[in-house]
C-alpha cells in the first residue's frame, strides 16, 4: 500500500483501492467477530477473563459494534463503491490515489478510535460512541474522500444513464455525511436530555436506514444481474425502492424511544413510518427475486449468488421484525431485551453481511484476475456464517422473549439471568462459528491473491468456478 500512497495516480493499477478496502474489510470482520465471540463468552461464562477493567464487557462491547459497522461493513461498502461505481459508468475510478489514501486513513482513524474506546474514551452514546475529534476525523478523512471519489466517478462516467446501484451509492455517501454531522450534534453543541436522546437514536437509526440498508441493497442490484447475466427485472421497481428508502427510512427515529417523554404525535408519526419501511423492502426483495428467473440453479452452484440471495431473503424477516417491533403494541414487551440484539444482528450480520461478502468475493476475484483459491473453503465460510448466525439469532430472540416476560411480570432479575443462560451459551457458539468462518475466509482470499488460478481475458470468475 505504501508504495502507492506517493505514486502518481496514473501509475496506480485500476482496482488497487478496492483491493485494499476488500482485504481491510475482511480483516476488520475477523477482528470484529473475534471481539463479538469474546464478549459473548463473557455473557455465557461470567468468570471468563475477570480482574481487568480493559477486558470488562463495558469496555469491549462498543469496540465490537463499531469495528463491525465502520470496519467490516463500511469498508466492504467502500470496496464495492471503488470497483462497481466505475464499472457501471464504463470508466475508471476518478482517483485511485485518493482511494488508496482513503483506505490508509480509514484504517489509521478506525484503529485510533477503537483503541480510545477500549481505554474508555467515549461520548457515552450508543452507536455514536466515538469522541468528537474522532467523529470529525471520520467526517473529514473517511466519509468526504469516499464521497468525492464516488461522485466524481459518476460525474465523469461514459454513459448517459446511471444504473440503480449508482443512485444508491451517490445518495448513500451524501446521506451518511448528513447523518454523521447532524447525529453527532449533541456532542458538538453539548445538547443534553431529550434532544441528546433523540439525536442519538436518529443517528443510530439512519446509520442503518440511510447507509447500511441502501448500500447493501445497491450491491445486490449489481451482483445478481452481473453474475446471472439476467437483466434487472424492473427499472420501475428500482425507482420505487430508492425513493421509498429516502422517504420512509429517514423519518422514524422516534420509534426507538417509544417510552420516552417525546411528543406523542411524533411517536405516532414515526411508528407509521416505521411500518412503512416494508415498502422499500417489498420493492427490493421482489425486484431481485424476479431477476433470478431461470437462474435459480445458481443459488446452489454459485458462491456470490448464494451469499446474495441469502441476504435478500433475510430482508424479509428483518423488515417484518423491524416494521412491527417498534409499534406501541409490541415495543412495550420487547424494548430493552435480547430480541433487539437479535434484530440488530439480523440486519448487520445477516442481511447486509451476506450481500457485502458476495461483493468482496466477486470484486477481489475480478480485480485480481484470480479464480477463487478454494470453492470448498468458500462454501465452508458460507455455511459457518449462516448456521452460526442462525443459532445466534434464534437463541437471542428466545432470550429476548424470556426477558420481555420477566420485565412485564416483574420476575426477579437473577431468575431471568438463570433462565437465559442456555441461550447465552448458544449465542457464544453461534458467534464463534461466524468468527471461525471468517478466519477461513481471510485465508481463502489471501491464497486467492497469492496462488489463485489466473482468469483469462474476456472471462468472468464465476464462469470458471468449476473448471480445474
Amino acid at each position, binding site marked *: 500500500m505504501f508504495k502507492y500512497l506517493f505514486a502518481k495516480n496514473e501509475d496506480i493499477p485500476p482496482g488497487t483501492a478496492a483491493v485494499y478496502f476488500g482485504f481491510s474489510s475482511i480483516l476488520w470482520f475477523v477482528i470484529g467477530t473475534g471481539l463479538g465471540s469474546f464478549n459473548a463468552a463473557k455473557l455465557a461464562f461470567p468468570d471468563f477473563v475477570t480482574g481487568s477493567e480493559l477486558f470488562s464487557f463495558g469496555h469491549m462491547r462498543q469496540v465490537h459494534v463499531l469495528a463491525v459497522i465502520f470496519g467490516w461493513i463500511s469498508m466492504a461498502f467502500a470496496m464495492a463503491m471503488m470497483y*462497481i461505481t466505475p*464499472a*457501471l*459508468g*464504463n470508466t475508471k475510478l476518478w482517483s485511485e490515489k485518493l482511494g488508496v489514501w482513503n483506505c490508509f486513513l480509514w484504517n489509521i482513524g478506525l484503529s485510533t478510535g477503537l483503541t480510545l474506546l477500549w481505554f474508555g474514551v467515549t461520548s457515552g452514546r450508543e452507536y455514536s460512541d466515538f469522541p468528537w475529534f474522532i467523529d470529525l476525523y471520520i467526517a473529514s478523512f473517511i466519509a468526504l474522500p469516499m464521497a468525492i471519489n464516488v461522485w466524481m466517478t459518476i460525474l465523469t462516467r461514459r*454513459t*448517459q*444513464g*446511471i*444504473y*440503480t446501484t449508482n443512485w444508491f451509492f451517490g445518495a448513500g455517501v451524501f446521506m451518511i455525511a448528513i447523518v454523521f454531522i447532524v447525529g453527532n450534534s449533541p456532542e458538538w453543541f453539548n445538547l443534553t436530555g431529550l434532544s441528546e436522546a433523540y439525536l442519538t437514536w436518529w443517528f443510530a437509526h439512519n446509520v442503518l436506514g440511510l447507509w447500511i440498508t441502501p448500500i447493501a441493497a445497491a450491491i445486490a442490484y*449489481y451482483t445478481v*444481474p*452481473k453474475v446471472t447475466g439476467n*437483466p*434487472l*427485472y*424492473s*427499472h*420501475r*421497481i*428500482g*425507482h*420505487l425502492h430508492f*425513493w*421509498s428508502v429516502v*422517504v*420512509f427510512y429517514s*423519518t422514524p427515529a422516534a420509534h426507538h424511544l417509544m*417510552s420516552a*417523554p417525546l411528543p*406523542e*404525535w*411524533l*411517536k*405516532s*408519526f*414515526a*411508528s*407509521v*413510518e*416505521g*411500518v*412503512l419501511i*416494508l*415498502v422499500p423492502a*417489498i*420493492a427490493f426483495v*421482489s425486484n431481485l427475486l*424476479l431477476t433470478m428467473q431461470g437462474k435459480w440453479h445458481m443459488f446452489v452452484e454459485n458462491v456470490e449468488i448464494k451469499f446474495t440471495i441469502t441476504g435478500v431473503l433475510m430482508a424479509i424477516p428483518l423488515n417484518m421484525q423491524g416494521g*412491527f417491533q417498534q*409499534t*406501541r*403494541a*409490541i415495543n*412495550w414487551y420487547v424494548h430493552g431485551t435480547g430480541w433487539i440484539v437479535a434484530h440488530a444482528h439480523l440486519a448487520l450480520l445477516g442481511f447486509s453481511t451476506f450481500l457485502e461478502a458476495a461483493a468482496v468475493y466477486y470484486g477481489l476475484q475480478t480485480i485480481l484476475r484470480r479464480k477463487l483459491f478454494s470453492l470448498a473453503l468458500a462454501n465452508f465460510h458460507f455455511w459457518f456464517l449462516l448456521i452460526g448466525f442462525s443459532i445466534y439469532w434464534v437463541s437471542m430472540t428466545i432470550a429476548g422473549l424470556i426477558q420481555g416476560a420477566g420485565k412485564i*411480570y*416483574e420476575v426477579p432479575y437473577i431468575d431471568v439471568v438463570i433462565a437465559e443462560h442456555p441461550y447465552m451459551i448458544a449465542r457464544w457458539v453461534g458467534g464463534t462459528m461466524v468468527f471461525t468462518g471468517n478466519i477461513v475466509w481471510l485465508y481463502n482470499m489471501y491464497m486467492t491473491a497469492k496462488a489463485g488460478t489466473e482468469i483469462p481475458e474476456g472471462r468472468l470468475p464465476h464462469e470458471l468456478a468449476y473448471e480445474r
Partner: protein
Amino acid sequence: MAWKFDKPLHSMSDAEQNKKACDVWEGESLGGIAENNNRVPRAVIWLMVMTIVTAFAVTNPLWGQRPTASLYVDYVKLMDSPQVQAIATDKGKMEYIVNNAKSSDSRTLGLQDRHPLTMDDLHVIKDQIIELENKGVDLEEYTIIGPYVQLANFEGEPKADGTPSRKQPFWDKGYTIDIFYVAYFCIAMLIVIKRLPDYSWKPDHSVAH
C-alpha cells in the same frame, strides 16, 4: 422534459421524450448490466396498499393500550349488589357483572372485551378504584398495571391546570401528517414511474450487449 397528460396512467412523457429514453436504454451497456421495463407487479402494488393500511391500523393507540380504571367502575359498583351476592360461583358472578355493565359506547365495549377480569382481579383493584373515585379524579387517567391502579405514564397536551393530560387520544396530528406524507409520496412515485416509457415497451438488450 416534454409532458403530456392525455393518458397519465400510460406515460406522462411525449413520444419524442420516450423515444430518446428507449434509445439510451437499449443503446448502452452499464458495465454489462441491462434493465427491463417490467411493470410493478400487481401483487407488489397490493402489498404496498396493504402495508400502508396496516401501518395506520397497527400503530393506532387503540391497540395495545392498557385498560383504564374507568372501564371497571361499573364492575366495582355491581360487585356488592344483592344480585351478584346471590350467585354461588365467582365465574357466574363475573358473567353477571360483565353482562350488566356493558358500555353502550362501542369503543369502551371493545376495550372491556379485550381486557377481561376475574373476580379475584376485581377484588384486588376494587378498593383502589373506590379510593380514587372518592378523591374525584378522572379515572380515565389511571391504568391497571397488574394488581395496581396507577396514573398513566402517557403525557399529552397540558390541561387547564397546567398538568399534562394522561389520556391517550386514538388519533393525533402525527397520523394526520402521515396521511399527507404518504399521499405526497404516492403521487410523486406515480409521476416518476409514469414518466418512463410505458411498460408494454420491452427493451431489446441485444443492441448494446
